[in-house]
């Protein structure tokens, strides 16, 4: 189960949990599983997220792999100049 860390202001959409564990092999599966478990997270996911998997920030690649023990952080979608 990958551990997905939610930023503080997301936690109210996930029953106050800071870390949500989901079964997923890819970033896309992880996001789908999150939304299924906590539909309140839907708007945040739809608004666009960046995901950091084991330290590497992945902008929008749903195919990027997530391992069973991965530490995943959700971040707001990053822009650059």
């Amino acid at each position, binding site marked *: 189960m990958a551990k997905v860390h939610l*930023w*503080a*202001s997301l936690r109210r959409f996930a029953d106050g949990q800071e870390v949500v564990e989901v079964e997923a092999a890819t970033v896309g599966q992880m996001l789908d599983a999150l939304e299924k478990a906590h539909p309140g997270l839907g708007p945040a996911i739809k*608004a666009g997220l960046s995901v950091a998997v084991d330290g*590497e920030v992945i902008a929008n*690649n749903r195919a990027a792999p997530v391992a069973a023990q991965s530490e995943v952080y959700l*971040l*707001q979608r990053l822009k*650059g100049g």
Partner: protein
Amino acid sequence: MARDDVKTGYKLIGTRPNRPDGLDKVTGRARYGADFSLPGMLHAAVVRSPHAHARIVKIDASKALALDGVKAVVTRADLPTGLTGEELNLQDNTLAGEKALYDGHAVAAVAATSALLAQDAARLIEVEYEVLPHVTDVDAAMAPGAPVIREGVADYSVPEGMNGNVARYMEFGHGDVDAGFAAADIVREQTYKTEATHQGYIEPHACVAQMGEDGRGEMWVCTQGHWYIRRMCASVLGIEAAGLRVTPSEIGGGFGGKTTIFMEPLPLALSKKAGGRPVKLVMSRSEVLRATGPTASASMDVKLGMKTDGTITAGQVFFRMQGGAFPGMSPIGEALPCAFACYDIPALKHEAVEVIANRPKAAAYRAPGSPMAAFAVESLVDEMCRELKLDPIAVRLKNGAKNGSKSSYGPVYNVIGLQETLEAAKAHPNYAIPLGPNQGRGVASGFWFNHGGETSVSLAVGEDGTATVMIGTPDIGGSRASIGLMVAECLGIPYEDVRVNVVETGALGVNEPTHGSRATFASGKAAVESARQAIAEMCRRAAADWGIDAEAVEWKDGAAHPAGPNAGKHPPMTIGEIGSKMGSTGGPISGHHEVTAGGYGASFGTHVVDVEVDPETGRTTVLRYLVVQDAGTAIHPAYVEGQYQGGAAQGIGWALNEEYVYGTDGRLQNPIFLDYRIPVASDLPMIDTVIVEVPNPGHPYGVRGVGETGITPPLPAIASAIAGATGARIRSLPCSPPKVLAAIKAKG
């Protein structure tokens, strides 16, 4: 990859050859956005709201249309309805709908047979407004009783009960901040403000576009990302993106401001109404300043706990950022993670709100959000260093992020170079120069995430053994040279034998813009992968010719060689020989790589600045300036230095004199370069640079993006240097002379 794994012995990487587009650019031949013309071309002009906030009651274009030579007028009524989200924001910004939301908001556009005629016609378009209450300042927009300028802008993230102008809310952190503050010897809390600034690219937005009644068209435009332009124009106009072919011109600077659309759909819409005649639209400078995308203005609370030995025990920030009248445009999502990114602090709390106000729709500007965050946090760190009489570099070395540190925003840093930049700054002669009267020194570090993103590159081997590389990231600062160097290094051929072209939307898969410091990193990475594919194919061709296995062929110095004694004795087969025969050995040889590039390494830098302040006028002179930044590997060091120097210069401008000044009427008071004061040549000293190289393991040659971090440290470094020179701390940028003089006087 550890430091001693650094790959060295490059033949070309690290050299400084002439850029391929240099000749065109010094002779005036290079073609920028406004330099394109087409037969039968019309010229467009835009009618803009003089009001910060007004209901559009009526638009009457009959007098304009009655002029001979006026061919078309478009208003919002000509655009499709039913868009939502950011697509609706883009459409609303292209042409105002029910309301004009800021001074300069486009209301109508007109096409005519000459630019002067179009301007005359625009003056004849009568717009009736009902002026509404407005608010332009970030704190004023948050104040109780502020006019709520748009209903329902709050997204899912905004808790109940917040001010009606709040569009987004964000909070994250780790550790126990209360315990952290309790463990500190001193806890200090301050509020900092930064005004909005503009990227200030010298080339105004310009494009020529043509669209027929079938909704298919072409566009030549100055942009950082032509696929973005294509997608955005298509959604605003309700046409198929694939029907639009967008060719990027040379680009006269962007710095984030040309990653999106402002007026580009207008010439397409006008062209369609004018029977498909091409239409050229070039913004004036005042249109650029009033109605493109400056950065957010910010009001920021910071609290820090520090022990007397300089250990930072806890930190907390609350940022309020205003990104114009459109939700989602302020960089709170970037500013918060950047706030403490240079530090490893056990307890942190970050909170931010995005506020909307009657200002233009903000766009990205070089490390969006990071300069403001650094101004707040690095200023307070400096204030506490001065209070505790601690060396600012020592405090940063002590608390700074390292390889393996958990970043302030969650993920763990892999291989980063912050400590190396701090050590190099400390060791630099500038840091030891004695200061004279009224002089002060400031130090600050800065961070940017960097970015990879959607990237598509093709490479074709020529019959003469050259290579042509097609990239989709417009070259703003010399990336064709650096990508050419990497490809030449990989292929083992002379730099001059590689031609790198930025190609249009019809010639490659989708590419994100040149943003996020990604062009040399991501297009470079994909170009190297493309070259490797071509090498593999060339090895197969040689193997076939030699009658051996392809695995028995290796590539070096621009030629296929038998890999070892078992492969047989064959003279090396050069890329030229393989290229000359490729038609008869299996066809053209090329390589392609398409990827959403990961593995970009985080970027850190440290700046040291010395200033002198005239105590009688408050005017600041920058005496010397040092930029130290990690480049991973500097492919073309001259253009790496150029990014450092250019970023520093923009940061110096932001720190000292640049600001958006709005009057009580909500109108921008300084929409010309006379009063929007970017640094001129005589304002600046030489900008010393040190390129630190901690190779990024996520890139075949160790590249890290270098474009953005450099704008971040100057804001706090300059304010801290002024504090050193005068004893007066400026917590609200810019450090303009009236403000500095008033602070000196207030100090007594």
